[in-house]
């Protein structure tokens, strides 16, 4: 039992210590985000340092697993959430996030935001975007699919790993992409694509892990994924397949919460996300495209990436209204033997 | 099988090393007699018994039972039955099954075998206990059941490893009487490990005294009890 006491003492001491640090007169900006944003390799640590240099405040990140969990967390906490800003929602969660009534208009000049598909909103501020794409391994795939139709109709022995739309946003992205291209014929497309799907993973990480392990030659990911391998691993082995129909886009946004205690600070942060100081960090840490001007040109690798000719984005209202029905449709099409 | 026959036991220059301990036995054990193996704990009493039973294999020497060299034989092929101090019965099986296993280890029983099991239970004073589980019996009753199994096996040699050590003194003497009675009827050769001098007095015809892995005395019980010259034996006699 003595051991227990020592540990609880340490725990108490840590909590007290943490409390005193917070008790300094500096204001604290609380930002809810997803885990990979704040990880050691993510943009979080640099963003925090850069913003704290200008604001005389402390940035406190609270990270949950992913964008979906972020929204859940806000719903659970309701109006009394300690968050000032939610950073990391994406276009597919957009409407539901707004419907919670927890967000306030951002009230900043967001004219600097440049996102394909002319994204404009008075509540959410985009900070980066990425087109979804099928990534292939050049060592095993000599003729990558040239379009979504090509992917659907192609050789079923060349497998792809995709994500589950019930548990992940890329999964939902593919679902919407197929819907945008095939419309009412989406179930038939899925029934065909099903034969090509090696497996459906709960999240992006599992599918991408299978891909880099060499288990599957195709994976559903982002146009920007090859940039990571080119910059960090100095290899252009993994490439995105450019699809003729165009690519579905994911725009990541942040928003100001109605209950924010540091409203001014939060607005300053939102403006900051559109400044080069923030945008410079994004490409090589979050591996997404910057949503506004950067101070320098992007690394070479980014110029080698696929540039989608057309951008798909279903309206948030349409997505929110039909998501459950479409997921059900997907389930049915994918479950047929 | 040598049904009901008597057999003598010979250990010829049997040598064995277990870790640091070395054993050397050379003796003969008389046919139809009760021989007690005794000595201080750790002296090698049980090892001697295990060699005869076949649980230990000698590194040198031969073991002969009833004229047959059994050195290479599996325990089940030797003409011996066994009763341990404890755990003689499978607790999850009833008495009938436990004893019947002595007749057929795969429990293929003829009608006569079933009668023999019941008769053996009767002889040890457990008539009608066929369906009882060992857990519901007293320590003495469990040992009686173990004797019953030895009876149905009808092997010429019965090996006992401190069979009464776990019982209280009053029960010990009752059990000793039972053993003598069974011995009178069947005339089996009995080899028993014991550290209880009272048991030696009451049961043994002959005594083997084991000291540091060797037999330092082999002879008649009365000669053993009269030993006063050997340091270890007289000390053993005084202590007990």
């Amino acid at each position, binding site marked *: 039992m003595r051991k227990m006491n020592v540990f609880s003492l340490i725990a108490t001491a840590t909590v007290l210590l943490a409390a005193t640090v917070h008790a300094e007169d500096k204001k604290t900006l609380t930002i809810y985000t997803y885990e990979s944003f*704040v990880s050691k390799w993510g943009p979080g640590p640099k963003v925090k340092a850069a913003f704290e240099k200008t604001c005389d405040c402390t940035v406190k990140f609270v990270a949950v697993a992913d964008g979906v969990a972020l929204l859940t967390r806000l719903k*659970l906490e309701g109006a009394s959430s300690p968050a000032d800003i939610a950073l990391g929602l994406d276009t597919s969660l957009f409407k*539901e996030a707004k419907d919670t009534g927890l967000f306030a208009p951002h009230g900043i000049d967001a004219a600097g935001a440049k996102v394909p598909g002319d994204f404009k909103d008075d509540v959410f501020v985009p900070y980066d975007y990425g087109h979804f794409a099928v990534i292939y391994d050049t060592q095993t795939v000599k003729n990558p699919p040239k379009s979504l139709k090509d992917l659907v109709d192609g050789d079923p022995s060349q497998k792809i790993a995709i994500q589950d739309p019930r*548990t992940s946003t890329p999964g939902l992205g593919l679902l919407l992409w197929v819907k945008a291209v095939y419309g009412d014929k989406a179930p038939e497309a899925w029934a065909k694509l099903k034969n090509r799907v090696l497996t459906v993973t709960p999240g992006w*990480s599992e599918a991408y892990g299978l891909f*880099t392990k060499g288990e599957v030659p195709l994976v559903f990911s982002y146009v920007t994924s090859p940039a990571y391998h080119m910059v960090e691993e100095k290899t252009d082995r993994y490439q995105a397949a450019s699809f003729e129909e165009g690519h579905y886009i994911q725009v990541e946004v942040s928003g100001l919460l109605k209950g924010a205690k540091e409203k001014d600070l939060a607005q300053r942060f939102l403006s900051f996300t559109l400044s080069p100081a923030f945008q410079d960090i994004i490409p090589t840490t979050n591996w997404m495209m910057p949503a506004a001007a950067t101070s320098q040109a992007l690394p070479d690798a980014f110029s080698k990436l696929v540039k989608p000719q057309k951008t798909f984005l279903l309206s948030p209202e349409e997505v929110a209204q039909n998501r459950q029905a479409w997921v059900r449709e997907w389930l049915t099409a994918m*479950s047929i033997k | 099988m040598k049904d009901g026959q008597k057999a003598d036991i010979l250990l010829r220059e049997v040598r064995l090393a277990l870790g640091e301990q070395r054993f050397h036995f050379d003796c003969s054990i008389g046919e139809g007699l009760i021989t007690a193996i005794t000595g201080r704990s750790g002296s090698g009493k049980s090892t001697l018994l295990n060699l005869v039973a076949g*649980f230990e294999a000698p590194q040198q020497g031969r073991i002969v039972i009833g004229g047959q060299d059994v050195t290479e034989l599996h325990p089940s092929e030797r003409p011996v039955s066994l009763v341990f101090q*404890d755990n003689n019965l499978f607790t999850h099986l009833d008495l009938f099954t436990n004893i019947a296993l002595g007749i057929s280890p795969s429990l293929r029983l003829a009608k006569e075998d079933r009668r023999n099991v019941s008769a053996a239970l009767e002889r040890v004073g457990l008539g009608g206990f066929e369906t009882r589980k060992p857990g519901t019996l007293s320590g003495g009753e469990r040992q009686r059941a173990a004797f019953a199994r030895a009876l149905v*096996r009808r092997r010429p040699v019965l090996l006992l490893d401190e069979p009464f050590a776990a019982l209280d003194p009053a029960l010990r003497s009752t059990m000793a009487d039972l053993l003598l009675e069974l011995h009178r009827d069947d005339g089996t050769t009995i080899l028993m490990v014991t550290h209880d001098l009272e048991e030696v007095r009451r049961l043994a015809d002959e005594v083997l005294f084991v000291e540091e892995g060797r037999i330092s005395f082999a002879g008649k019980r009365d000669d053993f009890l009269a030993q006063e010259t050997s340091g270890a034996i007289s000390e053993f006699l005084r202590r007990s």
Partner: protein
Amino acid sequence: MLTQAEARRALAGGIVALTLVIAITALPVLALLAFASRFPENSGFDAYTFSLLRFTLLQAVLSTLLSILIAIPVTLALCRRPHFPGRLWIIRLMAVPMGLPVLAGALGLITVFGRQGIVNQALLALGLEQPLSIYGLTGILIAHVFFNFPLACRLMIAVLEGLPQEYWRLGASLGMRSWSIFRFIELPALLRAIPGAAGLIFMLCATSFTLVLVLGGGPAATTLEVAIYQSLRLDFDPARAIAMALLQILVTACILALLSRLPANDPMNMGEGRRISRMDGQSWPARIWDTGVIMCACLFLSLPLLAIAWAGLRSNFLEIVTSAIFLQALSTSLAIAMLSAFACVLLALVIAFARQVVAERRAPPRSARIFSASLGSLSSLVLLVPPVVLGTGWFLILREIGEVSRFSIPIIIVINMLMALPFVMRVLQPALQSHRARTARLVASLGITGFSRWRIVDWRVLGQPLAMAFSFAMALSLGDLGAVAMFGSQDLVTLPWLLYSSLGSYRSHDADSLALILGLICLGLTLIGTAEREMRP
């Protein structure tokens, strides 16, 4: 056999433990229900729910059956060959899958059995065209067997090794052949371990999530647990999530109740701890069979682990293990694991002791029997409460009290403690039972009570099972991501969290290193659990 005061204390402890377990599981459910009442959504079951239930049960039943059926020959072979080279290390290796994050294990399995895996490469080299596909039910079963048959083996080996030495000698002297020994000695002993092991495995498989999705090959392979996660996360329909969680608990509990009707636990005397020496199985066919079985089990167990080790060593292993963030994650993980293991063992002891007190009464009153039974079943049913429900519910409760991130470490410890409880109970309950059966009278007659009883009598004997239980609980906690994911904040980094985080940031090589580390730690932990075995003469 205990003094009145001791019995009272033990029962009081049991009541506290029962209240604690109920509170930890029921409070979050209630909190979620209260919260859900604010969202008037329809939350009825439909055909989809029942198809999920059907698949959940199907794969869980098959996985359990296979795990047990494979574990039986392996256990028998390992017990019949006490001198098999490396036997102790094989048994230790069996503890590793338990402490691996599921995804790491799955990737290891894929390296072996996947499309590009070793097995398929070998088949291709042999000229067989059709590669083996593990995606689908096959893959789920392979993975579940990989994770669970070692658990079944360990539980069954413990029972066989606990048999009195005399049994094997009797078997030998009565001339029992392999089949008779199996029928009269081994099988009855195994049957005592199988219901418990099968129950645990069934619960683990019924609530499986990541493995089912990754290896299932498509949404046709979906468990209720996935749907619960979906309802709570993506659809945000707490009422539906809870309804499904209750369905899962109810149906699974029914199956467990059926399992518990299998042969009752027949308390046995323990041997004297001497090294088991077996007289049987000396024939050549038996030797070849045992060796073959052990080798197959070894290959099946070690190939995926070797794949993990190989991948880990090939990556920038040294760089990872010396990085500050790794050291931080390691110390956090170890501290959490140690505390939750400590708490879990304590809780399990209290529960086991209370049940023992009831069991030792000649004629326990009905209420006492119900109390003991509910302690027993609750301490295993906790596995069925989806972590996402526990986490979300506790989140709702704690945020009423204060800043949630302050409670994250304690709540993770509590949830990990609870999840390890069924495993720890399986180890401690029988140990305590047989220990009491042997020493209760003596201890009572000598009047040894309280702390000195612990110090003089109990600790010596229970030390080894306690250490084993502790290492079990620590391994489970080390590999657990669930609880951390719910409460994570920027300062709280554990090893599985770091592993998933690396994977989520394209750094799969870092993840390989971390998986290797976790595997090594688990292997190290089993040294605690099995250290005593070696020291026996």
